[in-house]
């Protein structure tokens, strides 16, 4: 990682983490640090160990070697990769939100408002669209007032327009709450604008850096081949300057689109 941030500004870090299963190395010598107010995105092909790395940082999997450090008292909000709600379990959005944390209806409503799905508070979970469901899960994570938000493939099951809106929401959450965000993604086109630091993972860290540098990295080009070159067609600055009022207005369109489809 660029520079060596002091521990006091870190939320969590892993040092030299290696994980082996059945004599196969799933993760090899991973170093990663997450700071407040920054979005770190882990990208990589299927089977690269992205979700596994997330689970190590969440403390769900103990690494074979290396250390995991989390700031004492760190509160973490997590949106897992695959959450298939079986329709045989009747569950309302409100109930899903408060499964492990008791919260008043007001608090739940506020969290859902922040992600734009407050009107769904009493809906059945299995009636939600893909985009609504992901927004509910993010709101659910926000309910814990996280210092660190961990989002494993947050745009799955969401259409292309909805994807852009979701990534915009994620940057807004970072700006508003100042929390650190660790995100896993395999689509490069949209994620670049919403991230401060990109880590390309394929069991080991192949390359990392600011998004505009990473896309020029030869290891990155090798990892993603044609996808990487097609990405280069889109100039990065169009999506990165979210604080520019003009860009804001342009970006807003897909958001309203996404919401009207709800």
């Amino acid at each position, binding site marked *: 990682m660029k520079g060596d941030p002091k521990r006091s500004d870190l939320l969590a870090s892993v040092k030299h983490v290696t994980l082996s299963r059945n004599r196969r190395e799933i993760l090899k010598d991973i170093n990663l640090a997450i700071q407040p107010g920054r979005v770190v995105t882990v990208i990589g092909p299927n089977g690269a160990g992205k979700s596994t790395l997330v689970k190590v940082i969440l403390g*769900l999997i103990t690494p074979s070697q290396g250390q995991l450090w989390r700031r004492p008292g760190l509160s973490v909000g997590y949106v897992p990769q695959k959450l298939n709600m079986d329709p045989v379990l009747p569950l309302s959005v409100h109930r899903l939100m408060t*499964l*492990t944390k008791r919260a008043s209806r007001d608090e739940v409503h506020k969290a859902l408002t922040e992600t734009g799905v407050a009107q769904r508070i009493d809906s059945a979970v299995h009636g939600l669209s893909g985009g609504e469901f992901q927004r509910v899960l993010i709101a659910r994570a926000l309910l814990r007032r996280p210092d660190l938000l961990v989002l494993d493939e947050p745009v799955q099951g969401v259409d292309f327009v909805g994807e852009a809106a979701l990534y915009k929401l994620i940057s807004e959450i970072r700006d508003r709450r100042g929390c650190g965000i660790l995100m896993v993604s395999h689509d490069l086109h949209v994620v670049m604008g919403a991230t401060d630091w990109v880590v390309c993972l394929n069991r080991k860290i192949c390359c990392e850096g600011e998004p505009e540098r990473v896309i020029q990295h030869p290891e990155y080009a090798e990892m993603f081949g044609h996808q990487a070159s097609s990405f280069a067609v889109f100039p990065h600055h169009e999506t990165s300057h979210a604080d520019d009022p003009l860009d804001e207005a342009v970006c807003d369109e897909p958001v309203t689109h996404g919401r009207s489809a709800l």
Partner: protein
Amino acid sequence: MILDDFFARAMLAGIGVALITGPLGCFIVWRRMAYFGDTVAHSALLGVALGFAFDVDPTLAVGGVAISISVLLAVLQQQRWVAVDTLLGILSHASLSVGLVVIGLLTWLRIDLMGYLFGDILAVTEADIYRVYIGGAVALITLVFLWRPLLAITVHEDLARAEGVKALPVRLALMILVALVIAVAMKIVGILLITALLIIPAATARRFSSSPESMALFAILIGMFSVAVGLSVSLNYDTPSGPSIVSAAALCFVLVFSSHLLTKGVRRWLNRSG
């Protein structure tokens, strides 16, 4: 005294069984543990056999064997050698077969095998009623305490763990609860059919429910109704009690499910023509 009447005893015990199989059955349905329930139930026969062989109280022996099988399964789940459903199939049929072989070897033993396999209302004693209500109360209270964490790990185990739920003890406790309930309910519905009383009322209840708790409640009511109808049929037509209860439950399911399909079809038809 009402308990002098064998039918009243069976009814009382059956209603007690429905009280606990309702909510527990919901978790069996939500967590797709039907095959697990079958496996533990089949192992109960081995428990009965061992109980007679070593002169231990049958409920105690059944509970012991069922809990051992549950724990064994929890441990064996960690291996990758064979898939879990294969493992369940092996344990289920092996324990049933070994149970039957042991009963066959005990040549001095004269037991009503059909009664154990399919339930027997004539066989419900006053002590059985106490067993059902004490065991059922313990199971129900435990389930109430475990309700929230159980629901959380049912939705997503890793998510629940990341949020501080201790998944392994909760999961193990549920398995033990299943074993306990099978041990107390065995006499009423029989070893081979006990899983049906767990899953059919719960699956039927889904149609009326908008929350996990209401589903548990409806499962209890449907279970009680099935017990009442099944036992009455058993009394009047001299049919085996377990199959009668399960047939009543299955009939409820078919009626509710077909009404669901029917209303769905009508709604679709109305939408198309409107």
